[in-house]
């Protein structure tokens, strides 16, 4: 296997982070230098030209979003375990396919359970 030095390949990512941070900070800084600053009650309300807010914006979100997030995280994990399998698939072949099918079927049982119990319904 040809051995490569990875950190050089990661340099664009670091550059990306630095530029993103720099851009945000510089924009905010120059904006605060240039713009006039005369706040009033009307201007500070969330929708200056819209409806008056009728409740606190920091209220509880609907609980069913949490179930959707749970499904997302668990299948995210499954996807992570799929990547290495996909990379070595041509080497391992049938054996690996059966193993991965077992893995996926076990998780599908949970998915069927959640579906059956109405966790996915959105009335």
């Amino acid at each position, binding site marked *: 296997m040809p051995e490569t030095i990875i950190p050089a390949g990661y340099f664009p990512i670091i550059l990306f982070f630095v530029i993103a941070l720099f851009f945000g900070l510089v924009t905010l800084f120059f904006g605060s230098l240039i713009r006039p600053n005369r706040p009033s009650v009307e201007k500070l309300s969330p929708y200056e030209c819209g409806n008056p807010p009728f409740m606190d914006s920091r209220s509880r979100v609907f609980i069913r979003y949490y179930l959707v997030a*749970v499904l997302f995280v668990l299948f995210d994990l499954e996807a992570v375990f799929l990547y290495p399998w996909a990379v070595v698939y041509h080497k391992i072949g049938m054996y690996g396919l059966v193993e991965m099918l077992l893995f996926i079927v076990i998780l599908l049982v949970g998915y069927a359970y959640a579906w059956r119990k109405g966790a996915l319904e959105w009335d």
Partner: protein
Amino acid sequence: MELKEIIFFILATATVLSGWLVVSLKNIIHSAFALLITFFGVGGLFVYLSADFLAATQILIYVGGVMILVLFAIMLSEKVYNVSIFHASKILPGLLVLGGVQVVLLRVMIESPWRIRAGADSVMRPTTEILGGLLLNEYLLPFEVISVLLLAALIGAVVLIRKEVKRRREGACL
């Protein structure tokens, strides 16, 4: 110092500092975002360990998944602001444990004869393929057990949350 050492130093410092912010900030949302920086920092440190797949996993699972869950849970439980979140009586024992753990681990770290293999740094290689081979051969049983664990977590979460969803539907106060 070379450039890569400087970047390593910045990453390690940011990780440790934001780790301290996680446990010392008063507002829970702020400490959740400090945890986000810690996750990114640990992901960056994985890169230096020639663990590219782990770095990607760290970002994907922790930053993309667990962080979302934590923020949802914070928003689902109403009292976020102006709550006292420290046990005043437990801060001294907490500091004692903090110092004790650090002293013990530092001693272990300094006195143990670590067998560093030669040429560990500088040469790195992609690991996804090796990890796949290990997962599907030597670590097959843990790999399948992980799927059972995920199944258990899914069913547990559905059972715990479903009751509340049902109760609210009957209450019709949505």
